[in-house]
Every structure is written in C-alpha cells, then in structure tokens.
C-alpha cells in the first residue's frame, strides 16, 4: 500500500557451503537484518571480525515502524560512517506539545545542549535506516549477508553453536563460534535456547496510520491548524476527534505523517485495519474535505518485558529480542543500537583472545541495567497514557485538568519520556574516582560531544576519537594540559592512545574542559564505545594500567 517508497528486493544466493554440502565454521553469525543486526554486523566487521548475517526475508522493514532516532544512536552510526545520509534525510524536531481536548496544556523542548555534532532527535522511516545500513553492510568485505536464510534450530556446544538454516534450496547446517540474536520481539532464537521473556502486557490496542499529506494541508485542518511549520511531536489526550482516547502525531520525511490512535481494549484488530474504518478516523481529525493518501496501517498491542539473561552460552541477545518496550519514548530501536555499540568491541577482544569471556558478562551488567531503565520509563508512560483502573484514570485526568492552569502539575504529564542513554554507573568495568570531579562525565557515561579545532579545521570530539583509531577503534587517554611523556599506555594486549588537549587538538571554545571538568593534568580514559571508564587529576601509568585491565574484566 506504500506510495512514497519502493521496497528493494535483495538477491537470495545459495552459499557455496550449502551447495557443496560442507559444514562451515564461522567466528560470528548474526541472526536478523533489522536495524540492530545490521548495526552490530557493521560494528563487528569494522573492528575486524568476519560476519555472516542471516535474515529470513529479503527486503527492509515493512512499514515505517521505528521512526524516532535520538542523538546517541546517531553518534554510533556516525562512528560507523552511516549517519550523514540519515541526518540529511531525517526530520529534525525538538518541541513536543501535549493537548487536553483541544487545549495546549504542556509543551516540552528537548533543548539540546548547543555545540554537539548530532541533533537531539530525527524522525525517519525505519526502511530508510535499514536500507542505508544494508548498503553499508553489503559494501563491507568482511560481511556476508544471507537473505532468505531462516534459522530453524540451534544446538549449543562447549565452544560453538550448531545452526540449522532453511533457504529456498532446503536446509543445511553451519557452526558458529558466537551467535548474536537480533531477531526481534518474537525471537525464535530465544525459544531455541530456552530463555524466558517476561514482563507486563498491556491490553490497549493502538492503530498506526501513516498518511501522505501535501505540504500545508495540516495547517488547514481545524484540529491541527495551530501546528507550526516547524516539525513537532503532538500528543492529544481525549481530543474532540477521537473521544476518550489518545492520539500522537509525528512528521516523517517524504511528507509522510505518523498518526497513532489509541483504540482501547475491546477493539478488533482485523476490523480496525480496514481502510473503511481507518479513513473516517483520519477524516474526523483533519476534516472531510482535506486530501490525504493512506500509506501504511498497523494495529498493535505491546508489552514491556526482557529476557532473563542477555547471554546464553555462545548466543548473545540484542535489541527487541532481548527487551521489548512500549513505543512511547522511542526506546526500542534507540536502545538496541546501544546494545550493538556495547557488544562489538567486547566480542572482538574476546574472539582475539585478549580478554576472557568475563568481559561479555559486563555486556549483561551494562545493557540489562539500561534495559531495566528503559522498561521503567516505558512502563510509567504507558500507565499514564492507558490507565488500568477507574481510579488511576481519574488521577491521570486530574493531572491533565490541573496542568492547564497549574505549573506544578505539568511535570507529572507523561506522554512518553524520550530516549536518552543510560549511564553504566554501576559497571564493574568502571574505576571509581580518586579525586573530586564536577559535571556529568562520571565513569560509565557515554562521551558527550564538544567542538574542537584539529589541524586548523573545526571538528568534534567524537570525530577526533573516530579518526584517531580508524574503524577498528581503541582506547583513548584524553589528557588536558601539558603533553604526557608517553604516547600510549599498553597492558595485557591492549593499548590506550594519548590525545592531548592543547597539543593534538585545541579546545578553542573551552566546552570540552567545561563538560569533562578538564583541568591541567586531568586524564580521561575512554573505551572503544566512547564511554568514560576512569578519570584522574594526573597522568599515572600504574593507575592507568590498572584501569585498563579492569576495563577488559581482568581482575
């Protein structure tokens, strides 16, 4: 039914191993070529690992699905060299408005801190994200993509897994030292390892309608005439055009708008998907005379749940296969990309024999912690949007009614708290501060970007970190003040390179020093996934070596 997008069809090719009946062993097999599987394949390949990526289909996501992408995943994709086309094509926004009936009762601004390379949020249809990632993966010499390769069975052994894969040419088997399962919320792989996936189910059904509107049409509609020309997120509680329920409106590229209608618990999903039901709902909202084209419709329910352990022997779970959240807050794809970011460098060090499997346990420590944070935020938003009892509905409505006059009630309104990274404050890889530091860059935090001058050009901290190591990545010692005597510090097969602020790069605006509380002598140890691992007020090799060892789980 899509009118603005033509779905690509990727070629199925029988592998030589299947054709010749060979049992081939692969260092790394990724299951599922969605945004997370593609990101993880690209990250692992750039770090030097050969990747076999399998997907049971041969195209990108059907429908726009995940449409909001936050700063941190954009920074990760920028490290992987794929962010620029996404940011160019995506719709930037930062203002959210909340209405009760047709009255504006609350407005939030993501108010991104100035002088970061990446925007706070873009909206972009998932198929564009996937297509960009597929192009990058297909072009990478270390990635082999098997389209129409469906995993049908998996057996775990001591140091590998045995996979049975079904293709149009029948079934064959292959061995994998490591498997990363990114096969989504309904992950078959999860069932194959016997993992549990528990949490809270929500009974409310929601209708997604993507509609194509010519520019300016929304400003003509009565319900949306207040919509400015800047893209914003609009959320209605109990609007006149959809009584007793909520509605969410988001702009995507190609003049496609996402409208999300809450339908309640008793809605019939098959009936509600029919154009003869959907079109009148949209006409109620826009008025009967305004022209639109229906692009994609989906009726969904959701759950907030996670897998009990992110790693089962040789099988590691990421993305929705590991944790599922409600859509309010854009926490699904955004957190999945951060799973990939966290896992790739660790897996590379383990496969290379530099670190032990204990390093992979820290993937569970850090990403399960983040998943729980996302689940908490997502569940809270869902409870506000879709109250489960008469009294919680009354509490919710009391908040909304108070909020139009009373500033105190506005922070209680929860139409979804938008995805921000969860710092790994309790990670066993962190080294605790041994001196006072101000500011947000506590060990376990992702590196906040800052403008720098490098070789006479304007650049960004994250760009400099990427350029310093190349795609393979590495550890960095960000050293403020006088240049340390050493260019790097090595221990146990890894090495951290010094980046001297004042020598190698110039903090011309002083924002780097401000954001990291950098004083002359300050040293920040940065992981390959651009997270702070440790920081000190002076350059002491013994302490740096100990922190590096801790950072690869060598205790």
């Amino acid at each position, binding site marked *: 039914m899509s009118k603005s997008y033509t779905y690509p069809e990727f070629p199925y090719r029988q592998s030589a191993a299947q054709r010749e009946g060979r049992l081939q062993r692969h260092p790394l097999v990724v299951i599922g070529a969605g945004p997370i599987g593609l990101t993880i394949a690209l990250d692992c390949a750039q770090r030097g690992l050969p990747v076999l990526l399998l997907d049971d289909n041969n195209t990108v996501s059907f429908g726009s699905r995940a449409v909001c992408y936050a700063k941190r995943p954009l920074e990760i994709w920028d490290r992987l060299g794929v962010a620029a086309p996404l940011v160019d094509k995506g719709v930037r926004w930062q203002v959210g408005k909340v209405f009760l009936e047709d009255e504006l009762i609350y407005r939030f601004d993501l108010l991104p801190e100035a002088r970061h390379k990446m925007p706070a949020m873009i909206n972009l249809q998932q198929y564009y994200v996937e297509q960009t990632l597929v192009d990058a993966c297909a072009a990478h010499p270390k990635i082999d993509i098997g389209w129409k390769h469906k995993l049908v069975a998996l057996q775990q052994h001591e140091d590998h897994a045995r996979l049975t894969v079904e293709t149009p040419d029948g079934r064959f088997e292959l061995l994998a030292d490591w498997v990363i399962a990114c096969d989504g919320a309904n992950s078959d792989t999860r069932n194959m390892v016997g993992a549990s996936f528990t949490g809270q189910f929500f009974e409310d059904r929601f209708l997604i309608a993507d509609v194509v509107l010519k520019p300016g049409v929304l400003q003509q509609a009565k319900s949306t005439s207040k919509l400015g020309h800047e893209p914003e997120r609009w959320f209605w509680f109990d609007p006149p055009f959809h009584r007793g329920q909520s509605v969410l409106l988001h702009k995507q590229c190609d003049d496609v708008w996402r409208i999300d209608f809450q339908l309640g618990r008793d809605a019939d999903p098959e009936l509600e998907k029919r154009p003869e039901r959907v079109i009148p709902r949209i006409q109620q909202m826009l008025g009967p005379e305004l022209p639109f084209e229906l692009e994609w419709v989906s009726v969904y329910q959701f759950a907030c749940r996670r897998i009990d352990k992110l790693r089962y022997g040789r099988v590691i779970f990421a993305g929705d296969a590991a944790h599922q959240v409600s859509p309010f807050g854009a926490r699904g794809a955004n957190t999945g990309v951060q799973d990939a970011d966290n896992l790739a460098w660790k897996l590379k060090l383990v496969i290379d024999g530099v670190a032990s499997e204990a390093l992979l346990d820290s993937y569970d420590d850090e990403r399960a912690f983040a998943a729980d944070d996302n689940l908490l935020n997502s569940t809270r938003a869902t409870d506000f949007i879709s109250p489960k009892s008469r009294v919680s509905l*009354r509490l919710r409505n009391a908040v909304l009614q108070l909020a139009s006059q009373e500033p105190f009630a506005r922070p209680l309104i929860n139409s979804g708290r938008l995805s921000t990274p969860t710092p790994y404050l309790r990670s066993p890889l962190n080294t605790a501060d041994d001196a006072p530091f101000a500011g947000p860059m506590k060990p376990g935090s992702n590196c906040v970007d800052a403008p720098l001058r490098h070789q006479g050009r304007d650049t960004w901290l994250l760009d400099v970190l990427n350029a310093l190591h190349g795609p393979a990545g590495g550890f960095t010692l960000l050293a403020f003040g006088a240049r340390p005597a050493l260019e790097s510090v090595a221990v146990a097969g890894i090495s951290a390179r010094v980046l001297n602020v004042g020598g190698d790069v110039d903090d011309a605006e002083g924002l780097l020093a401000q954001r990291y509380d950098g004083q002359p002598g300050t040293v920040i140890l940065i992981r390959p996934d651009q997270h702070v691992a440790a920081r000190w007020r002076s350059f002491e090799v013994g302490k740096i070596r100990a922190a590096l060892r801790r950072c690869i789980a060598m205790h």
Partner: protein
Amino acid sequence: MPLNHQPNIVDADGFYQELVESQRELSDEQAEMLTTKLVLILANHVGDREVLREAIALARDNTLAYATS
C-alpha cells in the same frame, strides 16, 4: 522531616467543615475528582518524597486493615 502523626491543624472542626462543604452541589464524580486534585495539590506542596512515601503507605495500610477486619 518525618510524617507528622500528631494533630497539626488549627481549628480542626472548621477545616473539616470546609473540606466537606467544598463538595457542595457537586456530582459524586465531580466530588471524587476534587478529592483527587486535592491529593495532587497537597502532595506537590509537601514535595518531600520520604514524607509522601510514608503518607501513601499509611493510607494504604490503614485501608487494608479495615478491609480485613
């Protein structure tokens, strides 16, 4: 500061009368909404999460105690 369990309202009878009279001429539904809003207004005024937690627990425990007796 912990939750105050001791009498703290000057002119308790007058306050109680005001509370009851605030619901005059309201439907049951409106009266319930008023009480709910009052909870939110006072909770914001208190602000202190420890005190609020103690107050919520007290209201719940007291309710459950009556439900089982």
